[in-house]
């Protein structure tokens, strides 16, 4: 084995240089030339040019006049430096009933009903009370968005039909017609809401 040590060392250096430095450098160069927007994080700016978020990264919404994303397990909610899910299993009482510093699904469902003026027996769509894998999920299901429309239109003094029409415009279908699930990007929908004249 000692005879192979020198070639092993040299192979490590050569291949590390090639795959660990040259390849990412070339890809970065091409990516920045061809797709600069995506390569830098699909960032969204306001009129004064300040970055207010990324199209792909969900952010925290709590005000009634905005659509709300899913609950998030990333840090205190949608923390980009701490992506991740709850990693709680299906029989976890913490997940279902909550604990001192964790809001369980039972309570999430109750708050969702009261916020959105639903009856005590109305069902809540599952994505509204479960946390995503990344904690940064930018989307909600169309069913979830539709149930929030009444609250949003009331808080903004808009016609319900107007808000529902906006949600429908923002439903992204399956990609190429068959891959993935229909969804609504919460940040883009809320930005479109802000553009409507009251």
């Amino acid at each position: 084995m000692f005879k192979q040590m020198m070639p092993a060392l040299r192979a490590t250096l050569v291949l590390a240089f090639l795959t660990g430095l040259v390849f990412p450098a070339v890809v970065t160069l091409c990516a920045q030339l061809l797709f600069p927007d995506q390569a830098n994080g699909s960032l969204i700016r306001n009129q004064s040019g300040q970055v207010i978020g990324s199209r792909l990264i969900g952010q925290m919404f709590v005000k009634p006049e905005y659509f709300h994303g899913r609950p998030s397990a990333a840090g205190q909610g949608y923390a980009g430096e701490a992506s991740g899910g709850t990693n709680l299993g299906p029989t976890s009482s913490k997940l279902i009933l909550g604990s001192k510093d964790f809001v369980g699904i039972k309570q999430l469902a109750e708050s969702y009903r009261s916020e959105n003026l639903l009856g005590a027996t109305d069902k809540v769509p599952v994505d509204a009370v479960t946390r995503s894998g990344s904690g940064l999920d930018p989307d909600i299901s169309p069913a979830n968005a539709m149930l929030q429309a009444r609250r949003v239109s009331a808080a903004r003094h808009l016609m319900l039909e107007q808000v529902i029409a906006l949600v429908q415009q923002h439903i992204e279908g399956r990609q190429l017609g068959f891959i993935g699930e229909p969804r609504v990007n919460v940040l883009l929908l809320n930005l479109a809401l802000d553009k409507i004249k009251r």
Partner: protein
Amino acid sequence: MTSAGWVQIIIYSVCLLILVKPVGLIIIQALERGKSLLLPVLGPVERACYRLIGVDSEREMVWTEYACALLAFSLVSMVFTYALLRLQGVLPLNPMGFSTSTAPAYATAMTPDLAFNTAASFTTNTNWQSYSGESTMSYLSQMLALAFHNWVSAAVGMAAGLTLVRGFARRSIRSIGNFWRDIVRTTLYILLPISFVCALFLVWQGVIQNFSPYTVVNTVEGAKQIIPQGPVASQEVIKMLGINGGGFFNANSAHPFENPTPLSNLLQLLLIFVLPAALTYTFGRMVKDTRQGWAILAAMFILFLSGVAVCYYFEGRGNPAIARQGVEMSVKSLGDSGGNMEGKEVRFGIAQSALFATVTTDASCGAVNSMHDSFTPLGGLVPLLNIELGELVFGGVGSGLYGMLVFAVLTVFIAGLMVGRTPEYVGKKIEKTDVKMAMLFVLAGSFSILIFAALASVVSLPLGCAANPPGAVFNNVGNAGPHGFSEILYAFSSATGNNGSAFAGIAANTPYYNVTLGLAMLFGRFVMMIPVLALAGVLVQKKLVPPTSGTFPTHGWVFVVLLVCVILIVGALTFFPALTLGPVVEHFLMQGGRLF
């Protein structure tokens, strides 16, 4: 389950099948004949590599020399990664200042045991991660210490797989190839071109690729949010193609910057399976009977589709404990946005998540686009069992094929016992040494999984001790009840199987877990790879036996079914007791409404 979901699964399978033959041919051309369309560009690079490494690429090696080269390279490159990780604080390309005095408050320290665990993890193609990428690793560490191994550990696996194929294809000689030539050619002619094109495709879909520091934004509601940055696409692509699975970010392929759209998800799924699927054709072609390769592929497909069906069914049914809170999760009304959505992304839904979980554990990938820890008990049993069966359903680059061939050897051996005849496989007599090596391979994996998991269930350390601050090693689990045991079993299955996915609720960044998991990874990689090289070395010396009327044909359905049965029986006999204590009992308790 929905028909829309099955359409996605079937289209994925068809795309994969279409790729098998062309990619299989490219592998033969590049690795056996040194031919490639890219020869004018990469030929000089290949020759320069051999000059710089200082080896004669034409010289063939016997299996012992080949194994020495493989071990030496793995050892040196592992030390290289360990050193880079420990030194990342003083090295460049560290805009967030990790491992320095200016590190942000959320940063994790790069301790010696974490660096050992990570170096072992990436060298062995496992990519188990006890850390969160975005709060621990500098960009240089990601690229040069970690992604470098994503390339070469795949090349090493491919090399080892090829030696076994040569063992069957060559006859009456001793040499099984040249290790340096195999890894250089795999890297240059197979991994590099596919990675380059697919990396740009991923960027187009939204994967980031830059060297900027993290962006701090004021959100629409006026809060502060940190948006991480980094050279992600160049790492993402080889993470999938090399079947490594180590995410740039903690959330892995669930993170929108690693896997932004359903289309990028489909590409990632194809990248995981394309090389191991194509290798079955390579095998058939090299032993001059492509039906042998298709038979292996058929067995893989049966196991793959059964896994998807079970996982998809149980994830779609969801969790009755959640439904009781007045939550709608029926896939009839919500489609694939219903079911068990805990730990899953809306853009992927249940179908793409169940498919991903099955694919990533059939192969030894371990990337995740949903959190396996939050799967329903039987939905989560599928990835766990996939790993324990030995990741031979497609499997790792090279390692999947050699795992499957080892089981093919066992299958003809068992068939031979039944009829009382010396078994043969693709024209080679299977004798005592061959079966010994095959059994060594099977037992090594089971031994490591079960013994380490058993130890972790009983080892008791004092509370607050340095080796494991939570005290008893069982206390590190993130869920009470049988699910906690599942987390431990999954951890050591994943490490031994060189998978790298996790029931991630377990707090594994303690010296006890870092060291034992690191050892399980090294054991699962090298103690299982050496018998394969030895088997190749024995087989290659045998002469070809022409088939007679008494030869058991290994290209028909009888063989395929028998092979699948042998895999399932060996797996079930070994792991069923352990699985019963974890996912199986949890399933019944969940149905009964128990919470822990």
